[in-house]
């Protein structure tokens, strides 16, 4: 392991890669701060740039953008109560009330220190967990991988929240469907190309991500513009932040919160599909319960514990979500799904072999997380008053720029004008689905996993002489599939069970 860390350190500390970490953190913070644009859009916008770099540098850049975007999202949550992403919604519960009390600087500092601690503790846990899981997963067969991908997809649907399970499942299937467009990988047969040469290679992953996130988010902002009061609020917030100092008593109060939330966040992050949003809400709820009646009342009114817990947890979860990506090749979240797509673009197949075959990539990602977190603290925190000025850029200039960068981001990779038109079609579909409240992240996850899932299923059937019995004959495959079934059906059946219990209780009281 020590050798690995040294390899990672030498790669990540390479001056060029350090520049990418710094640039990634800054750009990520900048993009993440823009309301509506989250880590997914930030990473998507970076893919064309990363495509021109070597794999280690590209992944380091994207990981840095990821952290920067989460940090930037927290900033807009605190300053203007406009979370860039769902994972920073809980941050705004106490961060924004603090900002309203004139303590925006302190809130930003607590958020930065908490994010840093969550990220660093998460990276230490990743250092231990990833090689262990990678060595275990070396014994996995293609049948197990197929089952794992089913688990990954069902978990996404299951964590979608009450009432959204069916929608998330359907969107996952739509993503899987889109992944089948183009020439079949093994047999060379054209599928769903509608006779168009431009579709022979299928739908580009970058195109789909850019259209469904960056482009559609900009179009949504045009469709539903903010009113003048909101714009004024943004200008005022970016102009006056107050002191950034934290007292010793506050540090003492926050230390156990940070410790607990880091572990909780990391564990939730490792679960496929759960991700930073659930981690941040769980950490917030846990700390509110543990705070006791006196301190618990402060939650929602500017509690430092209420701010620190979700901030720590979402960063630790972001780190945790790299565990299934790096060790099993299965993304734990929408963001890591985009990173998986980028890795595949480099010709790298993440999975247990990555740890053995390309240790420099495996370890440099882990080490760059530490460096990224340090940079966020040392560089971004002092720069926040200046970066926050981005909130004052008028939307009439910002939105066309986002559209421009999205379009040329895709065009510069393929140099095919058909892609621009296809992107517009996907963006329109994404806007319609957003308006109807259908989630888009499961679609991306389905799209990314589709090809691999089909390939593993084909291989599993080939090994088993065209027999589907591998689904129940191999214990590991069966166990994973049972877990997948439970993750999917338990949340669906819970409301029915609660209803039944309520009915039984009231019948008991009545009798």
């Amino acid at each position: 392991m020590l050798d690995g860390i040294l390899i990672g350190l030498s790669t990540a500390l390479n001056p060029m890669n350090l520049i990418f970490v710094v640039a990634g953190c800054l750009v990520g913070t900048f993009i993440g701060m823009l309301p509506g644009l989250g880590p997914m859009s930030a990473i998507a916008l970076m893919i064309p740039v990363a495509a021109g770099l070597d794999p280690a540098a590209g992944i380091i850049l994207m990981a840095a953008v990821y952290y920067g975007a989460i940090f930037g999202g927290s900033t807009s949550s605190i300053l203007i109560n406009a979370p860039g992403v769902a994972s920073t919604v809980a941050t705004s519960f106490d961060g924004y009330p603090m900002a309203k009390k004139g303590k925006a600087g302190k809130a930003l500092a607590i958020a930065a220190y908490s994010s840093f601690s969550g990220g660093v503790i998460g990276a230490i846990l990743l250092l231990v967990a990833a090689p262990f899981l990678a060595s275990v997963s070396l014994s996995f067969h293609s049948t197990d991988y197929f089952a794992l991908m089913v688990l990954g997809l069902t978990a996404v649907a299951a964590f979608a929240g009450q009432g959204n399970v069916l929608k998330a499942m359907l969107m996952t299937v739509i993503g899987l469907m889109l992944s089948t467009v183009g020439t079949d990988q093994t047999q060379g047969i054209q599928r769903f190309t509608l006779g168009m040469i431009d579709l022979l290679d299928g739908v580009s992953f970058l195109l789909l991500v850019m259209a469904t996130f960056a482009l559609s988010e900009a179009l949504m902002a045009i469709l539903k513009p903010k009113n003048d009061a909101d714009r004024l609020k943004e200008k005022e917030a970016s102009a006056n932040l107050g002191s950034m100092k934290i007292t010793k008593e506050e540090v003492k109060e926050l230390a156990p919160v940070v410790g607990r939330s880091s572990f909780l966040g990391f564990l939730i992050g490792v679960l496929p599909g759960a991700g930073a949003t659930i981690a941040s809400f769980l950490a917030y709820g846990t700390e509110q319960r543990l705070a006791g009646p006196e301190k618990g009342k402060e939650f929602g009114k500017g509690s430092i514990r209420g701010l620190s817990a979700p901030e720590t947890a979402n960063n630790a979860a972001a780190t945790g979500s790299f565990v299934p990506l790096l060790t099993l090749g299965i993304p734990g979240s929408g963001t890591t799904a985009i990173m998986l797509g980028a890795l595949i673009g480099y010709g790298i197949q993440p999975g247990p072999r990555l740890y053995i075959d390309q240790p420099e990539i495996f370890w440099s990602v882990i080490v760059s997380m530490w460096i990224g977190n340090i940079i966020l603290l040392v560089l971004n925190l002092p720069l926040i008053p200046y970066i926050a000025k981005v909130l004052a850029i008028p939307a009439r200039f910002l939105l066309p720029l986002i559209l421009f960068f999205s379009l040329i981001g895709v065009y510069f990779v393929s140099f095919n004008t058909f892609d621009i038109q296809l992107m517009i079609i996907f963006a329109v579909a994404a806007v319609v689905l957003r308006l109807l409240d259908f989630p888009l992240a499961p679609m991306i996850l389905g799209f990314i996993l589709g090809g691999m899932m089909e390939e593993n299923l084909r291989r599993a059937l080939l090994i088993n002489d065209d027999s589907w019995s591998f689904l129940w004959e191999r214990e590991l495959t069966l166990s994973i599939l049972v877990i997948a079934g439970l993750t999917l059906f338990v949340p669906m059946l819970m409301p029915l069970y609660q209803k039944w219990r309520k009915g039984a209780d009231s019948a008991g009281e009545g009798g």
Partner: protein
Amino acid sequence: MFLTNRRIGGLLLLAFCVTYAFLSQEIPLLPFQANVAFHARTMPEMLSVLGIGLSLAIIIFPSPKEFPEFAGKNWLTVLLFLALMSLYGLTIRPWGFILASSILLGGGYWILGERKIWLLLATSIPIAVAFWALMTLGLGVFIEPLPWFLRG
């Protein structure tokens, strides 16, 4: 009212899944593949069944009473932007990167309410030129900068 947001989405995606199912039957199969367990149609057929089933479930099951809101949204502005982006796709080659990109940016600012000509020009042309320079001179990716009538 039956047509809630959820059901409209379900209907639209059902139409997509049914079309997908029909098109999946047009995937050609090699003669020996008729009786094998896995061929190019296997996954699409499985997905068609799943997609249609899930869309129907979304339509049939009870749905929250949320209905589409058309009022108070800038539909026309979005349509203009879609047209502008499509025009960009059509013109980026014949008109060259700098002119097409400047029109996209300047047109975008104008649609969103900026009317000062000098500001429109000052915030579009330099960005297009700077980006072209970064890509071509910085990263070595050649993009034709000039319109067809100015090319040598």
